[in-house]
């Protein structure tokens, strides 16, 4: 049998900032090994150009545009934490914190109100909606979402938890306060708000399922999402990121239901952040797919 010609590469790895030679490998076969235990793989960013994009785990040395001596640049991404861990922590917090205020745990309100319940039925409804929202998010994190990145920088968990937990405490304090004032237009307002909230919760869930079904298990392929048989997904005709649209709708519903300014503030800040994300996603869709539908806006149909 003829001997197969095996191509060997020489590989040098330089630090992206200082250009110091970190390691030199000769006679590298087809696989590039991770070269240190401290810089575990999730933390390593290896790229062909110091300021370029990272190579993916699946990239094969032979198929990269390098000669027989390949120069790679290494960047330390910092301590990493998995997305799943971050999501579970940032969502479990608001769930539990809100319940602490709802049950009027001691040291929050005046002692005579400890462990009492609010006399307004909208407060009980709000607790159910808020809790349902975060339980839904936790379950989606565990069973629905397929993450394209495994990890994110560790400092994100502190930033994200401060945001979610802080706002949850701020709004829960007022909604469950003994001096809470129910909505001005009473039952009409609450009923409308609940309808909007539930509609958007179902919509948001439908979008998450649709996005999950775009991607077969274990793969990291990217496709254009399209409307399915589920009417809640028909909004894909007008919007790139309808999950954010529905999320905004849910929180508008909750604001209307509780008529609480901190909730409005949380809705506004969330809306700004989601708009930034939606615009980025929309831009990357346009870049990646030449046949991307032109009628779609990032987050609000025809507006934004």
């Amino acid at each position, binding site marked *: 049998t003829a001997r197969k010609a095996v191509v060997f590469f020489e590989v040098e790895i330089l630090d992206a900032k200082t250009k110091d030679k970190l390691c030199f490998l000769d006679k590298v076969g087809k696989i590039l090994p991770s070269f240190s235990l401290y810089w575990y793989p999730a933390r390593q960013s290896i790229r062909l150009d110091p300021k370029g994009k990272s190579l993916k785990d699946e990239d094969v040395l032979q198929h990269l545009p390098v000669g027989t001596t390949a120069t790679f640049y290494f960047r330390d991404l910092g301590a990493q934490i998995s997305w799943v861990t971050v999501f579970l922590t940032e969502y479990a917090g608001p769930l539990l914190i809100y319940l602490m205020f709802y049950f009027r745990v001691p040291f929050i309100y005046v002692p005579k109100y400890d462990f009492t319940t609010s006399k307004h039925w909208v407060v009980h409804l709000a607790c159910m909606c808020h809790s349902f929202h975060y339980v839904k998010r936790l379950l989606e994190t565990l069973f629905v979402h397929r993450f394209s990145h495994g990890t994110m920088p560790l400092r994100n968990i502190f930033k994200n938890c401060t945001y979610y937990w802080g706002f949850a405490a701020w709004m829960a304090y*007022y*909604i469950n*306060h003994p*001096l*809470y*004032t129910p909505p*001005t237009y009473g039952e009409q307002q609450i009923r409308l708000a609940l309808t909007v909230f539930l509609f958007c919760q179902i919509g948001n869930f439908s979008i998450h399922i649709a996005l999950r079904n775009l991607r077969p298990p274990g793969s990291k392929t990217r496709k254009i999402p399209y409307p399915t048989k589920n009417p809640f997904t028909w909004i894909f005709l007008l919007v790139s990121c309808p999950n954010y649209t529905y999320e905004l709708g849910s929180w508008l519903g909750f604001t209307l239901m*509780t*008529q*609480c*300014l*901190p909730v409005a503030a949380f809705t506004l800040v969330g809306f700004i952040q989601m708009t930034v994300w939606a615009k980025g996603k929309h831009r990357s869709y346009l870049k990646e797919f030449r046949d991307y539908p032109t009628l779609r806006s990032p987050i609000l149909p025809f507006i934004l």
Partner: protein
Amino acid sequence: MASGEEDGTVEEKETNNKKRTKGAIATAWLTFYNIAMTAGWLVLAVAMVRYYLQKGTHKGLYRNIARTLKFFQTFALLEVGHCAIGIVRTSVIVTGVQVCSRIFMVWFVTNSIRQNEESVILFVVVWTITEITRYSFYTFNLLNHLPYFIKWARYNMFIVMYPLGVIGELLTIHASLPYVRRSGMYSLRLPNKYNVSFDYYYFLIIVMLSYIPLFPQLYFHMLRQRRRVLHGEIVVEKDE
């Protein structure tokens, strides 16, 4: 194609010309702005000295110059805009924090609360000296004729002025606390239909506490700039 190339270079020249005109307009505006601000704070300094010489006391001095101070200090909001549109190379956040803290003092602390005049005079004097130095530094820089003593003043006086100003501001806020508590000003109590509350007294305490993380950051930012500017100069001299 030959004509295509020509179009390309003509376009390039047009964009370069546009950039140059934009740069010239920006420089002209910034020069005018910095001259105006230098003049404004000089007017304030003169007014303060005149008052003290005429009356022999600092009592009532603040009320006398309050309107002029508010005018020129509020005008400084434009500087945040300069950073935002990029004609000044400083972080929007750093400038924003500095200008906002000044505006807050002048409109929400001294504006509404009669108080201990000594601490107010302290920070107003510090601000005046600092701003005259800063704005004349920018002006001369833009005119490309920077006397060394102005550069020296800008990058050395803050070492003493900054902490003195902070002391004056903190003492002033602290002195206003009893009055704020008694009057319940700027505060919103429960119950109300927006289901939110705001206690200006605790807000002021939080503002005072925020000096602890913020002041060192701004101070070390200036120290780093100082090392870069003055240290850089020394290296050049050695080469010559």
